[in-house]
């Protein structure tokens, strides 16, 4: 509860209100008719004229009418229909020589369409996969008319349910048909060889051999077939292929293909797999307790949004660094890179029409939008370096420009660690002694530990021995002999020279009364005088507390005090049942006199 209210307070401070907003509203068109996700947005200087364009893989309203759109400023420059829904868009440099205008790659279905200067340049197809032999067999039979469409349908359905290898598109399409359409479909398609091809689910770029901003990059594809492919940017051949245990949905790549690289793939099974160069299989994995909704790499940290409305930070080795809870469901995420201030942060589009910007778990800024944002990207657009582009659920386009003077002040939206944690402590310098000691500890660590252990065992032993001795000589105020469970407790009252000594004796057995006990006091007769140093104890009924009172007269005039020993004895036995040492207080009455 406390945490919630504090985060509300902080978000209030980080929020951009009209007057001191960090953003300039450059453009808002609620009817721009752009329906897309962050993965299908890309910014690049496609014409090499210094004017950066926005590439949109548009799914169309309701995912019906996919288009590739290129925007300049607020206007659509070109648009061309796509054969199937886009999965991802990326821009990359494909060759060394001038002019170094970036190419555009659009992943859609089993293909990557590559455009140069906005003209189609190359179409990369995913390799064919071996079809299911059973399925192949069925279609072969259909070809020879040995099987009727209805049986074919039944058989294919049983394959679909059980088989490891999924069906081809042809079979899947066939299974959707009405009875009347089947016959003609079979006749049309029976002589075609069945093809099985997977589709691309995600795509990103990876530098080939240089880390420079304008170095050539490979394409990295994730497929529905639980695979990752790295594609050469010049020859469009497959450079590397990797398998992962689930279907990748978000990909992040870092490093260089020829040197050392790292891929992080967030998958549908709620796990993020991390792969390195030379590893055909995941090296690390991060298991989320929910499905991932976004993956962004910020500096060396993987930031993952989950369906549990939270943002997690992980290292590349899968160690969890932090978690922040969002006020609403996460719809989309992307990286905000503010080069001139060397800031990297994560932008998160939320279902409550907020876009939040986090640097690690620190909230830097909140932008409220008129509609829920479904895709966002930040970067150079037109001629402005720090432009934020957002598209909304209703198909709107929002463009904001970060003010030149805006700074994301740390701490204005703080929800993370309290400021005290960052305060530097005045730790004293390491002394010579300390250093020597540390060195000695490092060298002789084993020996030290052994000595410590020996001493510890000896201590245990000595304690145990003393305990046993105490039990044997009944020196304790508790008797544990099963026959006579007794408890003794002594209280001294008064200031002196006369004290009242009360012994509380209790029979702790459940049922058996105790009879025939004697109490005896042992004391220095030069110091104390007791009226009765030896007396009989009445019958002790179980559970009751018997206070036995006696007076003690202090004889010393020098204010010395001593111990009085109380022994509880049993008639006819030499060894005491119980004993107690009573430290007598100094007689104050006498001292005053």
């Amino acid at each position, binding site marked *: 509860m406390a945490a919630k209210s504090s985060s509300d307070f902080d978000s209030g401070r980080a929020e951009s209100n009209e007057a001191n907003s960090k953003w*300039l*509203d*450059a*453009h808002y068109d609620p009817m721009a008719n752009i329906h897309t996700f962050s993965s299908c947005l890309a910014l690049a200087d496609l014409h090499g004229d*210094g004017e950066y364009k926005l590439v949109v893989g548009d799914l169309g309203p309701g995912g019906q009418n996919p288009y590739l759109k290129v925007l300049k*400023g*607020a*206007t659509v420059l070109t648009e061309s229909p796509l054969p199937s829904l886009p999965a991802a868009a990326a821009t990359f440099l494909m060759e060394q020589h001038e002019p170094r205008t970036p190419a555009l790659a659009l992943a859609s279905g089993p293909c990557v369409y590559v455009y140069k200067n906005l003209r189609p340049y190359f179409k990369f197809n995913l390799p064919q996969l071996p079809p299911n032999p059973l399925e192949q067999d069925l279609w072969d039979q259909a070809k020879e008319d040995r099987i009727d469409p209805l049986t074919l349908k039944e058989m294919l359905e049983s394959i679909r349910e059980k088989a490891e290898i999924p069906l081809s598109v042809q079979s899947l399409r066939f299974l959707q048909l009405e009875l009347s359409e089947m016959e003609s479909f079979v006749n049309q398609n029976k002589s075609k060889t069945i093809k099985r091809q997977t589709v691309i689910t995600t795509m990103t770029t990876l530098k080939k051999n240089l880390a420079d901003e304008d170095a050539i990059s490979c394409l990295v594809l994730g497929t529905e077939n639980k695979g990752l492919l790295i594609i050469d940017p010049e020859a469009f051949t497959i450079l590397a292929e990797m398998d992962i245990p689930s279907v990748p949905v978000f990909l992040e790549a870092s490093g260089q293909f020829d040197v050392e690289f790292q891929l992080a793939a967030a998958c549908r099974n709620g796990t993020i797999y991390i792969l390195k160069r030379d590893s055909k299989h995941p090296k690390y994995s991060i298991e989320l307790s929910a499905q991932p909704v976004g993956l962004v790499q910020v500096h060396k940290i993987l930031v993952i949004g989950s369906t549990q409305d939270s943002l997690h930070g992980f290292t590349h080795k899968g160690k969890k660094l932090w978690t922040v809870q969002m006020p609403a469901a996460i719809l989309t995420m992307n990286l905000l890179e503010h080069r*001139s201030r060397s800031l990297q942060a994560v932008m998160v589009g939320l279902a409550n029409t907020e876009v939040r910007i986090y640097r690690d778990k620190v909230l830097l800024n909140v932008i409220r939008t008129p509609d829920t944002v479904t895709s966002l990207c930040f970067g150079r*657009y*037109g*001629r*402005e*370096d720090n432009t934020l582009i957002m598209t909304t659920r209703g198909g709107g386009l929002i*463009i904001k*420009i970060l*003010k*030149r*003077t805006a700074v994301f002040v740390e701490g204005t939206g703080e929800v993370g660690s309290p400021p005290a944690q960052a305060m530097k402590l005045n730790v004293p310098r390491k002394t010579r002694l300390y250093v020597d000691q540390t060195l000695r500890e490092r060298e002789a660590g084993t020996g030290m530990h052994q000595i410590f252990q020996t001493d510890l065992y000896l201590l245990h032993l000595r304690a145990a021995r003393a305990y046993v001795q105490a039990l044997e000589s009944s020196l304790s105020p508790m008797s544990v002999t099963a026959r006579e469970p007794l408890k003794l407790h002594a209280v001294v009252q008064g200031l002196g020279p006369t004290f009242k000594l009360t012994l509380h004796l209790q029979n702790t057995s459940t049922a058996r009364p105790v009879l025939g006990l004697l109490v005896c006091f042992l004391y220095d007769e030069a110091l104390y005088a007791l009226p009765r140093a030896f007396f009989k104890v009445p019958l002790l009924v179980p559970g009751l507390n018997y206070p036995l009172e006696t007076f003690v007269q202090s004889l010393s005039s020098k204010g010395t005090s001593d111990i009085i020993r109380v022994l509880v004895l049993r008639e006819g036995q030499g060894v005491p049942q119980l004993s107690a040492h009573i430290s007598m207080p100094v007689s104050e009455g006498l001292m005053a006199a």
Partner: protein
Amino acid sequence: MGLLDRLSGLLGLRKKEVHVLCLGLDNSGKTTIINKLKPSNAQSQDIVPTIGFSIEKFKSSSLSFTVFDMSGQGRYRNLWEHYYKEGQAIIFVIDSSDKLRMVVAKEELDTLLNHPDIKHRRIPILFFANKMDLRDAVTSVKVSQLLCLENIKDKPWHICASDAIKGEGLQEGVDWLQDQIQGAKT
């Protein structure tokens, strides 16, 4: 100013010198405009984005202008304010076809107008709504609306539509500026 200077100034032998700041976003056409105002034999052929700033000179019928052609790139814009004190007039250039960055131009203009070295001075400001020739350029009326120029009450200002490549609209602006400067002195 020495007596001789003043004399020659009065006699029109030597033109009076004025310092002008040329401001505006990068790629708006500042350098191109100033280049066009220079005598044709002094014009340079290719214009590259200005780094930092450059000092240019040109003359009108009665004045000699020394122009600080500032770079409009974001990272150099913080240099502008260091020259505000010396400037006796401002030329503010806007790319009329860059609708997206009109807000940025407005933001920079507002910052300029609120700067302590400018705020309380009656410094004349000439706006060029440049690149009028481009298809997606907006009119100078629209530009002055987008920049809320009507809110400038305490300074003389004027907006001209211009095409710096052909040199259209530039002379009108310079004539206005000259009138303002001379009017202020007399």
